[in-house]
Every structure is written in structure tokens, then in C-alpha cells.
């Protein structure tokens, strides 16, 4: 997860002022093209890892049918052909945009991805909001109070956030706030009636609060937010700890720079030095590393989703893995790879754009 290790700089270094005009455009292009090998590698990796571990037919029918019948079914499905041929076939399908249907529950992969992808995206966004709201201000505060008691406490808090497994945190939150105090619902993305209302929408985005807002159903919106709090906090805290540390480290780093000293020598207040002079330059590395956290967030989602009955990609992935549903697994992996690659792409570009040195 490399969560606590500062990420090395991106593979393609951001263009500097020295490169001639048009460098940014080229940079974006190259950075964009890098998405494809990433996806390709992951998909290939997962394809072979999945296929050497068994087939979906044994997974589903093994407890029921004699071996001969299973073998016949496997043969009928073509899973006993040489792997490489199946791999090429798979690549061919992907290239033509045909992702097929999941083997274990017969859904079109694209439909499955949009449905669960939206749920996971919603969870990730909620968690990200929590993480940013907690991580950034507290990180700045810790940097400001560096080496004093509040700083030590905040750092301790950050490490604790990180050290608590999401599922343990989720369990504790659930036991305290829903079972114990009854403030929040136990699980789920919405209560049954809201779920039904969401299922009846004609063109849903799949992100519930967005759908509720679009159909201006405020009661449903309230219900959805109410359900979103605990999962978002459980997953958000994990990332908040990382963000806190990240902001603190980088702000301290820039606080030691000459230009901050220069600001100080002109009489600028400490508060402003932290929140403006040091924070904005620190933002570039912060954003880059935050981009990498999307992977952590998605990984954490697997654990949070089960705990909170949040039917998203992560949970489904675990299910499909057990069912050896490689069509579904590869679909999900591909989507995750795309999300991660695109996020990192956007983040790198954003970081490059925040840096005025690359503007022309």
C-alpha cells in the first residue's frame, strides 16, 4: 500500500519551464498513453493468475456432479483449451468491446460494472470527503504545531487511523453507533423503501445521493446520507490518517523553504504562512500521493463493503473470485485498473497544472 512511504515521483517527470512550448500537451499525451500498458499488464496478470487456479464450473458444480460430467461441461465451455489461445481470444473480445456475461450469475459484465462501480464510487467519494475534511486541516494544524503536544497527539491519531484495520474500525463504529446508540442504521446504502424508489428510477446514475437529488426526493436523500455516514467514516478514517501525515510532512517541508522564511521576514503571520505560503507549494506532492491513495481506498472498500452491506465492486470481486468467475473478475480488474490509471493521470496533470512552471 505504500501508504506511509512517500511515493517516488511519477515515471514521466512533469515538464519544466525549460522544455519548449507544447511540452505540456506532449506530456499529457504521453502520460495518457501510459494508461494503456498499465491496464494491459494488470489484465494479463489477472487472466493467467485466475486461469491457473481452476475453472468456474468446478467451483459451481463440483459439489454436485461426478467428475466425468464436470469434465464434459468444462470441455463444452472450452476452458480446457491451451491458455494462450484463450488469452488471445479474450484480448480479441476486449478489443471489440465485447466483455461478455458473468459466468456465475449471468449478468452482462458492462451492466454489472456500472451498477457496482457506481456503488463503490459513491462509497469512495464519501470516504474521500471525510478523509479530506479531516486530513487536510488537521495536517496543517499539526505542521503548525510541529513537535508540540497537539502535533504529537495528531500524529498518534493518524497512525492509529492507519493501524486500525478497516473492518475492525467498521465493527467498532457499528457496534457503538448503530447497535449501541442507535444513531445510524446498521448497514446498507439506504432503507428498503428508498432502495425500491431507487430501483424504479428510469435513468439512474447509480450514485444514490445524486439520483435522490436529481429526482428532488429529499426524504430519500436524507435517508441515503444517514446510511452513508458510518461506512464513509470507517473507510475515510483510514485515508484521513494517511492524508494527515502527508499534509503535515509536506507542509513542514515547505515551511523550511527559503520562500517561507522570506514571507516571514516580511511580517506575514504564521497562520498565513502555513495555510498559504507553505500549503500551496506542498499541494503538488500531496496531490500526487493522494492520487495513489485511490488504490488504497478501493482496497479498503472491499473490507468496508462487506461490513456495511454495501454492494459494490470490492465485495463482488471477492465473490467472483471464489466462484472463479474470471469473466467477471477480469471485468472488475479492468475497471479498477482504468479507474486507478485515469485517476493517476488526472492527478498528475492536475499537479502539473497547479505548478505554474508548466504553464505557458
Amino acid at each position, binding site marked *: 500500500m505504500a501508504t506511509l512511504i512517500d511515493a517516488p515521483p511519477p515515471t514521466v517527470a512533469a515538464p519544466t519551464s525549460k522544455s*519548449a512550448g507544447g511540452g505540456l500537451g506532449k506530456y499529457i499525451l504521453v502520460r495518457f498513453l501510459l494508461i494503456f500498458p498499465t491496464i494491459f499488464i494488470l489484465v494479463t496478470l489477472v487472466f493467467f493468475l485466475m486461469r491457473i487456479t481452476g475453472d468456474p464450473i468446478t467451483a459451481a458444480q463440483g459439489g454436485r456432479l461426478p467428475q466425468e460430467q464436470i469434465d464434459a461441461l468444462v470441455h463444452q465451455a472450452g476452458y480446457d483449451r491451451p491458455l494462450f489461445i484463450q488469452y488471445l481470444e479474450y484480448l480479441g473480445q476486449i478489443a471489440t468491446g465485447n466483455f461478455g456475461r458473468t459466468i456465475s450469475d449471468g449478468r452482462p459484465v458492462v451492466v454489472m460494472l456500472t451498477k457496482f462501480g457506481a456503488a463503490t464510487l459513491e462509497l469512495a467519494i464519501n470516504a474521500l470527503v471525510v478523509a479530506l475534511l479531516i486530513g487536510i486541516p488537521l495536517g496543517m494544524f499539526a505542521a503548525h504545531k510541529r513537535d508540540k503536544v497537539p502535533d504529537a497527539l495528531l500524529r498518534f491519531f493518524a497512525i492509529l487511523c492507519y493501524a486500525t484495520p478497516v473492518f475492525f474500525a467498521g465493527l467498532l463504529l457499528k457496534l457503538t453507533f448503530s447497535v449501541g446508540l442507535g444513531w445510524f442504521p446498521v448497514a446498507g446504502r439506504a432503507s428498503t423503501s428508498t432502495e425500491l424508489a431507487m430501483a424504479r428510477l428510469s435513468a439512474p446514475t447509480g450514485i444514490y445521493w445524486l439520483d435522490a437529488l436529481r429526482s428532488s426526493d429529499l426524504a430519500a436523500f436524507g435517508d441515503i446520507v444517514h446510511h452513508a455516514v458510518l461506512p464513509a467514516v470507517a473507510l475515510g478514517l483510514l485515508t484521513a490518517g494517511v492524508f494527515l501525515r502527508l499534509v503535515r510532512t509536506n507542509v513542514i517541508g515547505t515551511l523550511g523553504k527559503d520562500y517561507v522564511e522570506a514571507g516571514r521576514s*516580511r*511580517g506575514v503571520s504564521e497562520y498565513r504562512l502555513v495555510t498559504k505560503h507553505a500549503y500551496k507549494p506542498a499541494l503538488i506532492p500531496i496531490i500526487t500521493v493522494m492520487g495513489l491513495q485511490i488504490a488504497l481506498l478501493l482496497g479498503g472498500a472491499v473490507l468496508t463493503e462487506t461490513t456495511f452491506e454495501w454492494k459494490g465492486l470490492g465485495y463482488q470481486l471477492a465473490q467472483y473470485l471464489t466462484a472463479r468467475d474470471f469473466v467477471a473478475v477480469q471485468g472488475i480488474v479492468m475497471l479498477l485498473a482504468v479507474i486507478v490509471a485515469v485517476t493517476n493521470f488526472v492527478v498528475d496533470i492536475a499537479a502539473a497544472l497547479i505548478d505554474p512552471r508548466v504553464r505557458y
Partner: protein
Amino acid sequence: MSDPRIIEASPGHGAGKVLEIDHLKVTFATDGGDVHAVKDVSLDVRDGEVLAIVGESGSGKTVTAKTILGLLPETATSGGAVLINGNNVISVSAAKLRQIRGRDVAMVFQEPSTALNPVFTVGWQIAEGIRAHSGGPGGKRATAKEAKARAIEALRKVGIPDPEHRVNFYPHQFSGGQKQRVVIAAALALNPGLIVADEPTTALDVTVQAEILELLRDLRDKYGTSIVLITHNMGVVADLADRVVVMYQGDVVEEAPARVLFAEPKEDYTRKLLAAVPHLGRNSASEGLKERAHQHSPVLVEASNLTIEYPGRLGTPAFKAVDGVSFTISEGEVFGLVGESGSGKTTIGRAIAGLNRTTGGSLKVLGYEMLNFKERTFKPLRKDIGFVFQDPAASFNPQLTIGDCVAEPLIIHTNPSPAQARQRVGELFESVHLPASYADRYPHELSGGQRQRASLARALILNPRLLIADEPTSALDVSVQAKVLELFKEIQAEFGFAALFISHDLAVVDILSQWVGVLYKGKLVEQGIGSQVMGSPQHDYTKRLIASLPVPDPDEQARRRAAHRALLAT
């Protein structure tokens, strides 16, 4: 424009004192116990005066400067008094201190590129200082608009062309010299009575340095701003200072008007310091030479029309760092290569050592054509080439002892027994005047000068025919530099190797090399016998370079400045 009479006139400039430091004492708490950075410093700065503080590295100049603005880190404890307009900076409240900063006293930093925040416009950064003070009319905080107007004003004062437009530029859109002007503009924004400039020109090329010095002089003349100028460059002191304070290990050892100090230094330390400063035209290695020495010896390095390009990133065109350069280095000859930062000196040196690929023309090193360089075929020649790096600290593997590092070439090429190696290292240590026992030390346990000696020893251990020295002394203090240069000279005489001596300091090059090449933007614009190049430069650029170089003698420098102005005027 003002004339060069200022030096005499200055002491009488005004009776008021903008700054008084009284028995200042600063101590830092560190792992290794307390560091007494400033032990007992008393000085004062009068209205409109330029006070220079000089001294070698670590003598406490920067600490003193920071104390004036109350910028010491929390690990520091200070005693004594620093009075600015009646306020004791050491004891005032934080809020009061913030008011003093920027309004009463401002600071100019050494490295303009790091003193400016890269992600904010320069206008914003200057305005921050203005808006931090109730500087607006009627004691109110300035509005964003007023602050910007004043920022433009300040930029105009420091000679940034088209300030209305440029106020919205980011730092990277300015050249190094302009950046330093912006930093000075930020310092000037609230018209403080005193500017503390800590090595304001050290990071700049000599030609740019000359401009900045000119600007500072103008500020003093036009606005009567007092300046505390911190520097270790005696030329700069001679150029600008009215009065000089010499510091040594946290104490003031001597204080005198500039002319007096240069003419008749009282303290031993000052005298030694002044003696160590290389002075263009004195001590030239090519003194009296009429034609190129060693012309008839075999040629070791021959560059003809040499071009070296760095591949451009992401499809941008390649960058030509060296462009059609031709020269030769003969056996036993010391070739001095000078030029400003980025002119391609290092690139040439590295190409000769096989660290950079050449991309065009021809470069023959010991008869080997570097254009089709192959590490395997070049390797046997490596034992005939020594290399001395600029930063002696970085050029030793921190995990190995000095002895191991020095012996490495020997081990690679001759596979000696440990005893032989030890023997040879011992011999070399003697040649470079290092105690043989230092072989067991780790690099960080040596001083900078000692490390550079060891570096020299390593370069010489195989008795190379050619030595490349890339700014071997620029990281060192003047006094240390003087010793290393002397050593270099001595060893060169003893071993008789040919050398490519690279430096940006004309005076240093002149001391060592009989033949000098001047590099400018990748082109060798002039080469010739050292004293001739320095004495009567032919190329415009060389002329400018030499004129910009301040010499450590106030009177002479005043004359040169006048000549320089004339040159620029044409």
C-alpha cells in the same frame, strides 16, 4: 548617475543609527552539545551606510543576519541586544516582531530562486508583505488593489521592465538576476530603513552580480537605505561597502572603513584572509609567457568542432550544451576553462572523461576517438586520466574509508596486494600533505579542504597523464582554496601531468593555467595565454566578464567600475 566617490563620502552620511547590535550571543542546542554560533558581536549601522560583514564559512554571519530579523529557529537562544528603531528584536513580542519585519528591516536572500515561492505570482508575494502591515492610508490594511499598485511601484524601483505586466508573472518567468531584483523589490516594498542582504550575489554569475551590486548602490544613493551586506567575496566588499566587519568563529575580529581595511589590515586573521583572496592579474601562471607553453609536446586531448547535445525530453529538440568547440591540451600543460554558469564547462570535462557522449565533431583523448565511445575499449585508458570533482564531500562514498576510496583506482587497474596499496596511498597522502593516519577515517570525518586533498590523491594514484579538475575549489572557503590551489600547483610541477582546469573564477584560473579558454553559451569565444586573455581580452564577452569581476581593492575596483560603465555604455 553617481560617481565613484562614495567610499570616501559615506562615513559622514548621517548621524542616526538604524541598527545597533550590542554583545550579541547566539547558541544553538544540537545533538553534539551547544554550538556557540555567535559569541560576542557588537556593531552598528548608520543611516544610508553599507556595512559589510565578512568572514569564512561558519563564522556566524548568517546567524547574525537572521537575528536582526528575529528569524532564528527555536533551538537558538540569544543574548545581548539588537536594537532597531529603539525596539530590541530579541525581546519584543511576536506580534511586534511581525510589525518590525518588512517595515523597519527587510531581508534579501542568497538564492533568489528559492526565496521566491514558485506557485504564487511575484506581485502576490510582494503584496503579502504589504498587506501584512497596516501600511495603508490611515493605518488600515492595504486593499488588494493598493497592495498591487505598491508592488508594481517596487518592481519599477528595482528596474524590472514593464512592471504593470510583469507583476502577474510567476518566479520561473524571470532570469536569475531579475529574480534577485524581485526579491529586493519585495524587501523595498515598505521602504524599510535597513536591508539585510545575506550573500545576495553568491548564486549569480559575475556579470549579473555586477548589475545587482549596481542596483544596491543605487538604492542606497537614491533612497538612503542602509544595507548590511553579508558576503565572503572580498571583491564585492571592495565594490560596495563603506565599512567592514570581519568575523571569525562567532566573534568580531576587526572593524574598519573599507579602504582602511584593505589598505592596512590590523589583525593577523584579516591579513591572512586578504592574502588568500585571488586577485586578477597577480600571481598569473602565464606571467611573461609570449607563446603557448608545451606547444611541442605530444597532444593528449584534441577537440575539433566538438558538439555535445543533451537529448530533449519528450520529443523536445535536443539541447546543444557544447557547440563547435576546438582546442588541444598538450602533455604537461594546464588548460584553464572559464565561463559562466551553464556555458558548458562541466560538459566538456565530463566528455573527456567518458562520462558524457559526444554527438558531433571529434574529440580525441589520448588518441581515442570519443565519438564512438565504448566503455570496454576505453577502459584501459582510464588509468591515465584523473578526475577531481567540485564537491569533495559528495565525491567520496560515505560508506568507505578515505583510504579505500583513494586506493580504488589502484585496485581496479593493478590488483595490488593490500600492503602495496597501503604503501602507495601513504605516499600520495604525503604528497598532498595529509597525515597517513587519515586513511582510516570516513569522509565526513575530514574537513572540506582535507577531503579535496584526498580527492586529489585519488586522482593521482595511478600517475595519470591527464587530470580533469572541475571547479575543485569552488566549494571551499577562500583561505582553504588558496591552500588547495597552491598544492595543486606544487603537485602539477612534481608530477607533470596535463590538466584541464575548470572554474568560473577568472582569477583562480589565471593562477594555475598557462593557456585559458573562455566558454560562452557552448562556444569557445576566445583562447590564449592566460595573462593575455585577462589583460587584453579580445572578445566582447571576455571583456564584459573581466570588467564585471570585482577585485579585492576598493580603489582599483572604483576605477574598474568606471571603466565598466563606459564599456556598458558603448
